């Protein structure tokens, strides 16, 4: 299936964006977010970017105060996902300019739109920043 979820969490463990590609109940989400956030936040820079959790892996990357966590199947290419996170960040950066946690927090809908242009049904759908951002730009113009 590939990507199971994308989570953006800050240093305090507060969720800033959550998109799941398999259905989990609210309780399951809460448990999962609690467990993996605890695991990932406890790690330091000298440790690798992959954490094995239950029957899948979490590939994560930290940008300032924000952690980007992507849950993937065990056979997914870890480095490709790691760079996909960076692509997501670069795309946000291109749109917001020096993106920070607050941008994502207060423009939740835009963060969702971007992610939706990039991942669909657990698969990567687009990797060109121009193509990803064009629907949002269209909308901004319209409003």
């Amino acid at each position, binding site marked *: 299936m590939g990507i199971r979820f994308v989570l953006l969490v800050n240093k305090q463990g507060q969720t800033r964006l959550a998109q799941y590609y398999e259905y989990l109940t*609210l309780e399951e989400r809460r448990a999962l*977010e609690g467990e993996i956030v605890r695991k990932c936040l406890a790690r330091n820079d000298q440790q690798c970017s*992959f954490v094995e959790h239950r029957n899948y892996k979490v590939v994560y990357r930290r940008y300032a105060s924000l952690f980007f966590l992507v849950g993937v199947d065990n056979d997914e*290419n870890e*480095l*490709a996902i790691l*760079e996909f996170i960076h692509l997501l960040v670069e795309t946000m950066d291109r749109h917001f300019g020096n993106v920070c946690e607050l941008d994502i927090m207060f423009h939740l809908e835009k963060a969702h739109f971007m992610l939706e242009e990039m991942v669909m049904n657990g*698969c990567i759908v687009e990797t060109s920043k121009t193509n990803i951002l*064009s*629907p949002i730009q269209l909308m901004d113009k319209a409003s």
Partner: protein
Amino acid sequence: MALSGMRGLSVFISDIRNCQNKEQERLRVDKELGNIRTRFKNEKGLSPYEKKKYVWKMLYIYMLGYDVDFGHTEAVSLISAPKYPEKQVGYIVTSCLLNENHDFLRMVINTVRNDIIGRNETFQCLALTMVGNIGGRDFSESLAPDVQRLLISSSCRPLVRKKAALCLLRLYRKNPDVVNVDGWSDRMAQLLDERDLGVLTSVMSLLVALVSNNVDAYWNCLPKCVKILERLARNQDIPQEYTYYGIPSPWLQVKTMRVLQYFPTVEDPNTRRALFEVLQRILMGTDVVKNVNKNNASHAVLFEALALVMHLDAEKEMMSQCVALLGKFIAVREPNIRYLGLENMTRMLLVTDVQDIIKRHQAQIITSLKDPDISIRRRALDLLYGMCDITNAKEIVEELLQYLSTADFAMREELALKAAILAEKFAPDLSWYVDVILQLIDKAGDFVSDDIWYRVVQFVTNNEDLQPYAAVKAREYLDKPALHETMVKVSAYILGEYSHLLSRRPGCSPKEIFAIINEKLPTVSTNTVAILLSTFAKILMHTQPPDPELREQIWSIFRKYESYIDVEIQQRAVEYFALSRKGEALVDILAEMPKFPERQSALLKKAEDIEVDTAEQSAIKLRTQQQTSNALVVTDQRPTNGSLPVNQLNLVRIPSQNMEATSHQEMSRENGAVNKVDREPVPSPDLIGDLLAIEGPPSAAVPAEQNMVPSVDATADAIGALALATVNEESNTVQPIGNIADRYNALCLKDSGVLYEDPHIQIGVKAEWRAHHGRVVLFLGNKNTSPLTSVRAVILPPTHLKMELSLVPETIPPRAQVQCPLEVVNLRASRDVAILDFSYNFGTAAVNVKLRLPAVLSKFLQPVAVSAEEFFPQWKSLAGPPSKLQEVVRGVKPLSLPEMANLFASLHLGITPGLDTNPNNLVASATFYSETTRAILCLIRVETDPADRTQLRLTIASVDPTLTFELKELIKENLVDIPKTTTPAPSQAPPLQPQSPVVGSGYNDPGALLAGLL
């Protein structure tokens, strides 16, 4: 900072952000939810803009982890809004809040369809995305043709087509028939000619799913994939936008190579050459650079190329390049690369024979076992476990032991189990094995499962040379302060049996041994008390001449426990006390435990359960050398008919008889006279002959059952062995390891594992099933250091299966593993079984076995989720026999509903929760595939009786009466299965008395019946 026009939302988010604690946050959220609820109630006054705002708030609240159980209608209704901003919110929030089974979704199917077939491409994209993310079967049926049309349309722009591709992937997963259109594989091949890399990226994901399910239909895509890979690798015609840090879309490269890993080989020489050129270029041309992102991206491609090369396993030179690269990676400082190096090296171990090269890196791998990063430690542990063999076992196991004391709690159990298995498999000598296990218990007692210490007891009992050594060790450990309780158990047991072998040593007189064990008595749990009482009885028996003082001490303990609250302890105390007053007779009754019959290590079984892919694991096991299997099979002295000494039998029987002073003497004389001792039926369940009987997981029902299980197991084993012997005209001295029937039964419920094993060969199975096709690979592994000759494998297929086995080589070289693919096609529903007639010669021994192959009916089922709308009309239309059959099944093994659901899942039957309102019922459905009938939907309902778990009512419906009947029987077989499959693994129960084969016990081993039929 405010959202364009949604001030209320910004204010709310700020408020939440300013909350000092969770409680404040909750209050603020509750207030907002109340507000939204009221606004939605007076919906009339709500503008689309306001609706949009509230729906976003709901999503925000949901994201924070609060339940939002209202307002779904409002969210869904926005989908029908005419304007883009509202529609967009409707689609996005709906796909976040709802799941595919939600009823609201059905309300909008038409709107969604109109958006998809409409002319507004932004609407098309929104609709396709939502269906791609949460579309269920309903969508699959009503939308698939439209989505297909969009995907292949030449007038559609790429931005729509890329979404159509992934939407179709979703619909395909919900219902594989959506791509069963004529010429679909040609369409896929055409799609691969696409120039737009966005479309290509999506199409490649779709192709992975299609190819992984049916590689044969898509061979025409193979050359195109290689072309795409060439185009990317050579950076030809790649737009700048798709170049990531100078690397042409690494994600598309990775995906393309993933597709290629589903094709077994590349036959066309030109394509092959082109592919290997590209791979060579990637392997050689990837350098480490300063830029982190570039480095990661190029290595993502490199690791995928490594996986592809390993999969193709063709070019020796390239394989050694791979090993060299991995060797380099596991030594770098960069943790990601090191992690992946270790992970891929473990994978490499499974596909090809590179163990010797990998061993050169052992020191480096051990360093990683001490890495501060648990992810890396886990990979290192897996790799060490995989690469261990007799030459390096000592070193590796000692490293694991050393690591155990500092390891994280999360890893200790796995570590302990792995160390125990390696020690057992590769022990250079048995005293080392005993040392390792005792150290293991000492260092990590809490993480050492009972299986581990049962196993060491078995080894010691079966090896006389080992007994004094084990006793000395056990005695030494008892001197240590703060002993783990498991250590108390194992030491007490061993000293009870063998301390008399030490009695001349200082500190080892019976009195001293008793004193030191007795010290532990007040602090141990009930289970251990039982063992200690047995130990005291044994010490008493071994003390010759009797020591009145010691006897008085022990008796006072027995008397004390005669009124103990636990009935087992009470009984032991009473009986030991009575027995020990018999003087001389005690020696006969409490004689040393006889040898245990050899059986598969419970640990290995446990490990197999843990490993996801047992076939792969067995590939590792195959590398086991012959000497080591000797270490494993320390004794194969299975007691033969009539050879059991009478006094041992007494030990088994006496406790279940009354305790009158004369009874046991009479009994034995009686039995001895008729000389039929070994034909006694299986001892009654209440016997406590087994001194460890009280042990075992407390959850495992009554102890009686625990006693029963191993006996039954031994019986079945024995019959299996007899059956084999008949086939081979008594000349076959090679005994199978493990129970053939058990192995077969397990494989009926999973797709990989060991089908058969004996001291010379192991036959592993790995199967893949797609609709009515199956591909089963037999792994024939020679365990010896000399070749197996005259190897012959013939398939005897039942009439409903077409089976074709590829050529099996006549000779299997020493320690080699041969893979023989077997193609299976299902013609119709039947429960007849296919047989593999397998024979080989080893030295002078000729072995012939007939094995059932797990190509059973359930393998041709695919679980489907059926909605209530689909289920009930079908269910009603199939009114009664022969399409719908009902039966009350009795004698069902007691399963909880979740357990039953698991069983159904392993039979490929999809449970649909919620269809039946009664919580005691299960409803399941599956699609059955066969060449003659195509897909048939099967519906199953199970009504259980919470008051009596041993009976249930089973109803099966499908349009094919034969299928209905066969499926009903299949499910029944699994529900009333012989108790072995779900009871705890037999050897998990305590060691048992050897039982002589019980002929005519009425116990039917299917394997035996089968051999009789042939």
